[in-house]
């Protein structure tokens, strides 16, 4: 043993440190638990929800707008959270809506992350014209109203959950591109990149193996915030009538549908999905906030 210091066990990896740090905040752990619970509920929705709200044949219009706790016509089913205007069980609709919302959120954020990160890294690494070009595209993207974009995409591609995802990706990738570029410019000037260049490594190797992993933390932070944003944005699009199809309602769709009933006293149709949305967004943000604290304590917006 050349050195007196005790050998640190091999498994004390970054991941370990990261996990330990993450677990140090109770609120964040609570957020994570909530988030996982929501994800599980969403995945298991077809098996645990009392009714399949997509199966329109099983809906009976006579059961519409039942208050929470009411039973259905032949008493076989209790609507714990009531029913909506289409006689959908609100609880089931929330579970399925959760599925749509989370799916839309996750998929759009992941794809936007990948596209944006690639564009941002390339812009930062090469600079000059490529940078200018990519950033102008980003500018255009950012000054284009998302609602109009969504409407155009929906008109061109038709309605569908996947189309909403395209719209959200188109809106979001630009944020990632900007952030990735900012992070990559900082990283590019660090000495380890020069060291890698000294090693005569190819640019793509340097970019992906060296620079990119170091840009992930700030991007992860944006990703969590964006996830919450994507879900909220989808809800807004649905509110403006350019969101997911009525037959596959997301939480946002449920809220905006239910809003018509808000003043009439049938509060549950909109209220419970609203609570679900608020909870999930809060859970994501709690996790994201803490991630930001441990991943990049300096740059926390």
């Amino acid at each position, binding site marked *: 043993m050349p050195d007196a210091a005790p050998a640190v066990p091999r498994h004390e990896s970054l991941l370990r440190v990261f996990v330990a740090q993450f677990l*140090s905040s109770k609120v964040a752990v609570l957020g994570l638990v909530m988030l996982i619970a929501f994800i599980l509920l969403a995945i298991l929705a077809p098996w645990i929800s009392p009714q399949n709200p997509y199966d329109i044949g099983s809906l009976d219009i006579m059961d519409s707008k039942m208050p929470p706790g009411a039973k259905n016509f032949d008493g076989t089913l209790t609507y714990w959270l009531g029913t909506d205007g289409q006689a959908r069980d609100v609880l089931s609709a929330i579970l399925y809506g959760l599925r749509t919302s989370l799916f839309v959120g996750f998929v759009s954020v992941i794809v936007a992350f990948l596209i944006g990160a690639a564009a941002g890294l390339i812009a930062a690494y090469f600079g000059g014209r490529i940078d200018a070009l990519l950033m102008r595209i980003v500018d255009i993207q950012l000054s284009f109203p998302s609602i109009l974009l969504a409407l155009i995409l929906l008109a061109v591609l038709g309605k569908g959950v996947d189309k909403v995802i395209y719209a959200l990706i188109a809106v979001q990738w630009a944020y990632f591109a900007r952030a990735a570029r900012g992070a990559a410019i900082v990283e590019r000037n660090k000495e380890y990149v020069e060291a890698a260049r000294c090693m005569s490594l190819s640019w793509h190797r340097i970019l992906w193996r060296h620079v990119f992993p170091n840009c992930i933390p700030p991007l992860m932070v944006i990703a969590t915030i964006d996830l919450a944003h994507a879900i909220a944005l989808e809800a807004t699009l649905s509110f403006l009538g350019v969101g997911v199809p009525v037959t596959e309602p997301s939480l946002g769709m449920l809220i905006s549908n239910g809003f018509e009933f808000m003043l009439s006293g049938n509060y549950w149709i909109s209220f419970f999905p609203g609570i679900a949305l608020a909870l999930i967004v809060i859970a994501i943000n709690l996790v994201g906030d803490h991630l930001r604290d441990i991943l990049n304590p300096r740059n926390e917006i």
Partner: protein
Amino acid sequence: MTETATLAPARTPRHDAQEAKLLLDVRGLRTWFHTRDGIVKAVDGVSLQLREGEILGLVGESGSGKSITGFSLMGLVDAPGRLRADRLMFGGRDLLSLSPEQYRQLRGKDMAMIFQDPMMTLNPTLRVDTQMIEAVLAHDKVSRKAARARSIDVLVKVGIPSPEERLLVYPHHLSGGMRQRIAIAIALLNSPKLIIADEPTTALDVTIQGQILFEVQKLCRELGTALIWITHDLAIVSGLADRLAVMYAGRIVETAPTPEIVGGARHPYTHGLISSIPSIHTRGKELFQIPGSTPSLLNLPEGCPFQARCYRADSQCLRAPPFAEVGPGHWASCWHQGVQA
């Protein structure tokens, strides 16, 4: 030989008439940071005496607690840090009993501080005159005009050409050396009794460093200001300080008049520091090296903090050595203190 016994003479400074009055008297200063991972004992039992007009060089490696000692004296320890001391007297006042407002009035008036990085110490968004005048107005009820005039005086003293113009610019227009001079000028504005200089030349080039040292030395002599010069470079302070104190892991391990330290260090760490300085004379030879690296201040093991790296360490060192006088005005904290290193 307990601490109290050895330090007894210093506690009655008035009797010590052959030299100037005791300005600063610190005993058992402990500044601990209560962090999530545990308690970081950044300063753990520092004792210091400083007479009026005396220049003390505080030397130590990075992380040994030099800056925190300085901040503790200034009452500027930040949030998770907690300060305790057996005795903290400054100019006859007990700093431990001061209210925050009284402490504020003391800061910048009777004791001033200069920081390491001249690029960061001046507020980049405020003009130099604003930053100087506010320092005067914080302590004296004088007109802005008088404050400005005083600023110009002091700028001249620290050797800044055409000070009126310099007052009107933003810090970033000035070079590092200029900025450091302005920081020194700000420290001098209210004619403090003590200046704590925290590595003020580390970030500067050799030639500029020389200029700053020159100005500071001159001013302290002229104004009779006491100075604590914090640095990690023994060579720099050796030509400046009357007395040196060497810090290691949050304590002072040796203190003595400069010639004594340079010529006859008693602590193995001090000795190691001195002999590991590279120079033209060491060319071609292998440098003396202290093995290992600086210990973490978190959960430092019992006993002498240097034992793990010390060539003289033995079982005795598992107990903390006392800080004892080993010669006239020469104190060291080592079980082997009698032995000249």
